[in-house]
């Protein structure tokens, strides 16, 4: 946590600011499953409540739906509760969200779903605002960390006033932005849990759901008619009776980006309408703004939410009219060009040229290929993938979401769909091939955290339906990809306390798998033998599981027994270590048919000794 530097102000990460916002608003329960860009919210919440001795509960849940349901239950007892996740995590909780909007809540219930325009580390660029429209849950769209704090407070008030779940969707540039923020006091909430039974609501049967749907629609209509909810967040800047040739509508991060560019370029007089509370959408305000402008550009991320709503309005342009690309982050330089073209079209006045064309050409020439992400030197997954690939050269490799997705560089990952799909797609591939009488070896990989998140249902299904597949659970004892959160296998809780430990092997056996082997992938010959043993079990039993157990070397660096590695004259420069094993610590020596080891990168795991065909690598 940053130090308090000047009295009352402190630089905070957006996610830390939101944790603070939750505690300022009196949130008593927070549940989450880690996912970039949301992962730092819960740890910051834990840290703050400890620093200020606040009685609040926080947990890493096993997945997002579980996080949602846990927090939701707390909100039904009258407490203020929240869950947080990344945008694709909300898909996992979507079933609950849809229903919770109908049932409503008692205490305040806020869902923070962090979007990833770009996408920087996500499977899809989906827009949580559209999810909020789908679920009929009101949404706030902060532009800055500081605004996120205020929106969280408003969201709790709204949620309690209307007894509705409310969504706050910060984008990655809010989550991972840092801003100096005025610190206010935090205080414990004394509210006691008090669940009032009302099965007609909390366990409503379909007939009553219809009534609840009607009620929800009424609540939404009310919210729009009460401007106080969006006060300061939805702003129509053109005064009554005035008219403009060009106007811009924006929300969230694009709003401040547009403002900065226009102010910078000295055209601050072009009106920009801010939509910080996009749902229920401010129909009247939007119409009013559009009527006061001849041409309107809608700038939003990631979807075309506002544009969808404004579709039939003449003079409105944006993504659907080709003025803005349909995908990707609206980074400032891209936005600059977009705004310039729009202002040229509407006013005949483009922004000043950003760069001299001859310089632009020079830049094109120096641009290197982007660095592709690789597994860390010494990563246990690399050793496991190498052995898997060698044992099953012809298999279909299904995999999952985590660091180990990068096993695709080693040719041992063919598919990545969503959390848990490493297992479910493997059985799907089996059934598809089996139908044709043409069985292929199928090897699935999944991480420990992901397996707890959503592996079990697929595994049970595979056993039940007699699939034939080998599942390798890459157990590195941590959720590495999102910044080292503990897993149920460790039995360490979000606040560092001791939790119930759930050994992987027992879960796997509970799913109906008989052959469950565990081996350390650093022991390459032993691990390969375990793979062979597992292969036989697949023949016999259908589904077998091999747990590849070795701690992430970044999280547990101190546990590594480091060896100094040497390359002997036997090296013939075949480059297997560079290309197939893909260890970043190896590099070809320019002009020689040999490789060398970059000492600053090598962690001395010694796995490479077993992979070099000429035996040229040895521990010194």
């Amino acid at each position, binding site marked *: 946590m*940053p*130090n308090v*530097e*000047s009295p009352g*102000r402190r*630089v905070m*990460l957006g996610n830390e600011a939101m944790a603070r916002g939750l505690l300022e608003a009196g949130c008593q329960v927070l549940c989450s499953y880690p996912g*970039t*860009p949301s*992962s*730092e919210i819960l740890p910051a919440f834990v840290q703050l409540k400890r620093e200020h001795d606040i009685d609040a509960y926080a947990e890493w849940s096993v997945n997002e739906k579980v996080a949602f349901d846990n927090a939701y239950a707390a909100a039904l007892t009258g407490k203020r509760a929240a869950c947080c996740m990344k945008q694709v995590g909300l898909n996992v909780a979507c079933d609950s969200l849809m229903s919770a909007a109908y049932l409503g809540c008692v205490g305040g219930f806020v869902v923070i779903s962090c979007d990833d325009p770009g996408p*920087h*580390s996500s499977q899809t660029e989906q827009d949580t605002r559209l999810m909020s429209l789908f679920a009929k849950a009101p949404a706030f769209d902060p*532009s*800055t960390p500081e605004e996120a704090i205020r929106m969280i407070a408003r969201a709790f008030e709204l949620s309690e006033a209307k007894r509705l779940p409310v969504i706050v969707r910060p984008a990655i*540039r809010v989550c*991972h*932005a*840092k*801003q*100096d923020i005025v610190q206010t006091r935090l205080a414990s909430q004394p509210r006691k849990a008090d669940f009032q039974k009302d099965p007609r609501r909390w366990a409503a049967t379909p007939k009553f759901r219809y009534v609840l749907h009607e009620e929800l629609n009424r609540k939404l209509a009310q919210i729009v008619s009460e401007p106080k909810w969006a006060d300061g967040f939805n702003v129509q800047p053109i005064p009554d009776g005035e008219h403009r040739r060009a106007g811009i509508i924006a929300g969230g*991060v694009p709003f*401040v*980006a547009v*403002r*900065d*560019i226009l102010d*910078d370029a000295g055209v601050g007089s072009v009106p920009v309408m801010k939509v910080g509370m996009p749902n229920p959408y401010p129909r009247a305000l939007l119409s009013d703004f559009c009527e006061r402008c001849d041409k309107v550009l809608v700038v939003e991320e990631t979807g075309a939410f506002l544009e969808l709503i404004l579709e039939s309005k003449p003079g409105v342009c944006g993504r659907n009219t080709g003025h803005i690309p349909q995908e990707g982050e609206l*980074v*400032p*330089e891209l936005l*600059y060009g977009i705004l310039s073209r729009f202002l040229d079209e509407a006013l005949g006045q483009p922004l000043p040229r*950003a*760069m*001299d064309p*001859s*310089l632009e050409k*020079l*830049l094109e*020439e*120096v*641009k*290197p290929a*982007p*660095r592709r*992400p*690789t*597994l*860390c*030197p010494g990563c246990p997954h690399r050793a496991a993938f190498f052995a898997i690939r060698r044992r099953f050269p012809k298999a279909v490799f299904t995999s999952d979401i985590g*660091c180990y997705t*990068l096993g695709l560089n080693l040719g041992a990952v063919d598919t990545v769909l969503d959390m848990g799909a490493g297992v479910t797609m493997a059985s799907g591939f089996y059934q598809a091939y089996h139908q044709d009488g043409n069985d292929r070896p199928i090897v699935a990989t999944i991480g420990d955290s992901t397996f707890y998140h959503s592996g079990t249902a697929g595994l049970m299904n595979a056993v039940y339906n007699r699939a034939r597949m080998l599942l390798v659970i890459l157990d590195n004892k941590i959720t*590495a*990809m*999102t*910044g080292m959160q503990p897993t149920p296998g460790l039995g360490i809780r979000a606040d560092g306390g001791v939790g119930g430990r759930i050994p992987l092997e027992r879960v796997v056996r509970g799913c109906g798998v008989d052959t469950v082997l565990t081996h350390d992938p650093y022991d390459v010959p032993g691990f390969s033998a375990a793979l062979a043993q597992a292969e036989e079990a697949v023949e016999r039993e259908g589904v077998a599981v091999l747990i590849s157990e070795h701690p992430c070397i*970044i999280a547990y660096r101190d546990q590594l027994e480091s060896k100094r590695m040497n390359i002997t004259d036997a090296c013939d420069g075949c480059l297997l270590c560079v290309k197939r094993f893909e260890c*970043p610590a190896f590099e070809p020596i320019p002009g020689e048919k040999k490789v060398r080891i970059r000492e*600053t*990168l090598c962690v001395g795991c010694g796995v490479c000794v077993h992979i070099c065909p000429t035996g040229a690598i040895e521990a010194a």
Partner: protein
Amino acid sequence: MNRNYVLAGVGGQGILFITRILHDAVLKEGHHVLVSETHGMAQRGGSVVSHVRVGSMQSPLVRAGTADGLLVFEADELPNTVSFLKPGGAAVVNGPDSARMPFQLSEYLKQLPAELHVLDASRIALETGAPLTANMILLGFSIERLAFPFSYEAVEDTVRNLSREPYREQNLKALASGYEAGSLGEKR
């Protein structure tokens, strides 16, 4: 006063730590600060970029062509980030020497025009037996070169506050040696 800086390098070079020192030092001098960081793939040796904005702006990203200064911890990352520099800006780069740069890059900097300062901070750090302090040396070196809106003393203070115990003295020493190399003998 508005200033924009971009820091670039690869995972493991302590760029996020330097970013933190910068924003705390900025805050200490009483300015508003906005930062945007890369998280996620950072540990896996990928590119790490952070944007530091000082002043009245509201959006966290620096626009290409508007950075006052560029602080590059790994010479290979300069081509990736050079487009952020504004005419009249300056770049400080950790690398063996400027002669090895691609021709187009030097040409680009000359035409912009922008200043380039190259310092082999990694080698200096290695020679002093503290290889992990290259980032501190580079930071010290850049304080005057990049016209940061704070004093050397403010940075020194911040480094002292933020460094963990066994590394504190090492960090301060590295910072001072970098500063000496960078201040052209005018001060200290």
